[in-house]
């Protein structure tokens, strides 16, 4: 700080930077205002205006088992499960990819990454037939695994790069001491990799939480559908007339992800660490 006081040009630059940041932050915030205002405004419309009054009626109207609790529970099951599976499978897969010289490493990574560059909507038709034939339709567990598989390429990619940043010397020492690869993975690598795993988990959760198309096709029973499908059908059917309830529903639906993000980023010391993961 002393420096910026001593140098007027630096102070001006710093003020300009703060101003620019404030404007940008405001631009990111403004679209969200509607959500918050409409959720508590008894006469909600599309316009974001300071609420004409304060009401919790919209929340009361949507906080029922069939609108919110069951679907959000299903979302937690589907997306939380997918995040855990993705993290576990990614760590396992990233280990040999990072630690051993493998001829097929680059082709493997690029193939996997590009294959999933096919839009999910394109492959849902064969996926549906596959689920029917395997008797997996309407199974939350299978849908969860599918969501996990669809996040895997990204997860493996990130985890492998995180792992490249973890020095191999410790493991070599452990091997010399007779530890198996499994032991060194479990007791040395995983603890060092924890922040990266948390990042992958959050990424998977955020990406799958908003996906309505996959569960819409693969699940049938209304009581197994996740919130993404419920919020979409709610919008489609009543969105043009029940703004307040839609906003309240959206807030409740977004909340678990925000809480999780904050918890993870707190646990990582206030920084969502991507360091080292983005170097190809």
């Amino acid at each position: 700080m002393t420096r910026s006081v001593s140098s007027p040009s630096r102070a001006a630059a710093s003020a300009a930077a703060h101003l620019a940041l404030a404007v940008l932050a405001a631009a990111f915030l403004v679209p969200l205002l509607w959500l918050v205002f409409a959720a508590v405004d008894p006469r909600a419309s599309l316009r974001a205006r300071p609420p004409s009054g304060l009401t919790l009626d919209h929340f009361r109207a949507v906080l029922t088992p069939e609108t919110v609790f069951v679907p959000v529970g299903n979302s937690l099951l589907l997306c939380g499960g997918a995040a855990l599976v993705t993290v576990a499978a990614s760590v396992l897969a990233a280990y040999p990819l990072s630690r051993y010289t493998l001829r097929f490493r680059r082709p493997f990574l690029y193939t996997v990454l590009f294959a999933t560059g096919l839009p999910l909507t394109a492959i849902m038709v064969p996926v549906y037939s596959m689920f029917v034939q395997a008797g997996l339709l309407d199974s939350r567990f299978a849908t969860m695994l599918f969501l996990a598989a669809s996040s895997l390429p990204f997860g493996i990619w990130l985890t492998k790069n995180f792992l490249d940043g973890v020095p191999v010397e410790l493991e070599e020492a452990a091997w010399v001491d007779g530890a198996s690869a499994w032991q060194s993975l479990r007791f040395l690598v995983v603890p060092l990799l924890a922040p990266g795993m948390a990042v992958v988990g959050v990424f998977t959760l955020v990406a799958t939480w908003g996906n309505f198309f996959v569960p819409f096709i693969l699940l049938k029973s209304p009581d197994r559908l996740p919130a993404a499908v419920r919020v979409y059908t709610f919008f489609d059917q009543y969105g043009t007339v029940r703004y307040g309830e839609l906003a309240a529903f959206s807030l409740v639906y977004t909340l678990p992800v925000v809480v999780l993000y904050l918890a993870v980023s707190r646990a990582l010391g206030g920084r969502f660490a991507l360091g080292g993961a983005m170097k190809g």
Partner: protein
Amino acid sequence: MRRTPISLSAAALAAALTAAGCGASEDDPDTITVVYQDYGTFHAADTLFRKVKEEFEAAHPEATVELRPIEAPAEDYQTQVNLMNGSPAEAPDVIYEDTFTINQDVEAGYLAPIDDYWAAWPDAEQYHARADAAVTALDGHRYGVMLGTDTRGLWYNADLLERAGVAVPWEPATWDEVLEAARAVKEEFGAEVTPLNVYAGTPAGEMASMQGFQMLLSGTGDTLYDEDAREWRTGTPGFLASLEFVRAVYAEGLALDPRDALNPAVGTLNNEERIPAGELAISLEGSWATQSWIESANQPWPEWADTMRFAPMPTREGQDPGATSMSGGWSLALGSASTNPDLAWEVMAHALNRENATLFAVEGAQIPLRDDVASSEEFQAADPTPDAAADLVDVTHFRPAYGDYPRVSLAIQQAMEAVMLGDATPEEAAAAYADEVAGVVGPDNVREG
């Protein structure tokens, strides 16, 4: 090229595994699966089948009726049912089927003919003969039984028309008289009231094509498809006249502002907000519009009966039969993969019996096809559909029920949109439509002029 056989066999293997459905169906023959739509303001099918399930299972203790309500708009409902039909293990036994898709689904092998069941069914004689065509496929077999039908026409706010100096009850005899009334409303109220709603453009989707365009075209004597010659028609005078009507309505500012007309939710906004608020004088709309106003609606408007009246849409010059309409209709059909078609038919027949048909017609604001339902006091007392609308079944038309229709319909919506926005003259839009249709169905299947 050496690798081709390998990739082909791999593809074939995967295709066999994923698409063909080699495994035998594990269906329990005593379980009958019923798939239907349950969405938005439409809960009549859900009400009906819940009742059917309860009654049928009580009467047949060994049987189970499994309900598969699908909460999705019409197009997505169709997609889901197609997916189910494409996988024998998942294919439903009884399908709540738009009569409009029967031909496609028959060609795909998804439906089973019901001629024998129908011939032996005592209730069959109650059905009006006009319900036959819609459920009979091109191969001449019957594939469904209609649950109900609908018509389209002009809903108008009598109060607004009266204040604008239009005599009420309003009975326009030609297109010009419709436009005159709309102009009178515009003169009286200016920007406060939208005089005339005609759905147009791609966001409104099938509403634009059916409630809008084909309600006009069917009053010109021309058609989209010549059933006798089995070919699509383009460049007809009627097609041009219909686009000209759309142009007039939008260019004169009689219709909604295009940016409002191009809102995908325009139908909901019209029926739930603009009409109850007295902001829309005349709307070319379905006979079921009352669904948005009755007690169980999202935004009930019980006073609707005080102001809203229904008038048939006239033909262009008032030529015979004077009025026109378009109809759709939903039926129950039998899935071809059903392991127990006899039991499935029994479930169907139960859902179609007099009591249940009455319930469905009332709940779904449908026009019943059984004479004993239409004439029953019970139905008459609860019937939400205006008589004028119900009578239109005598002059109504249906959409060409072929696989190419969805694309043709999109081309119609695009032509309307170009005209409403002033991007093209009716002539240019009609020419573009002709090109598009030739591309979709192949030049050999089109007759121009």
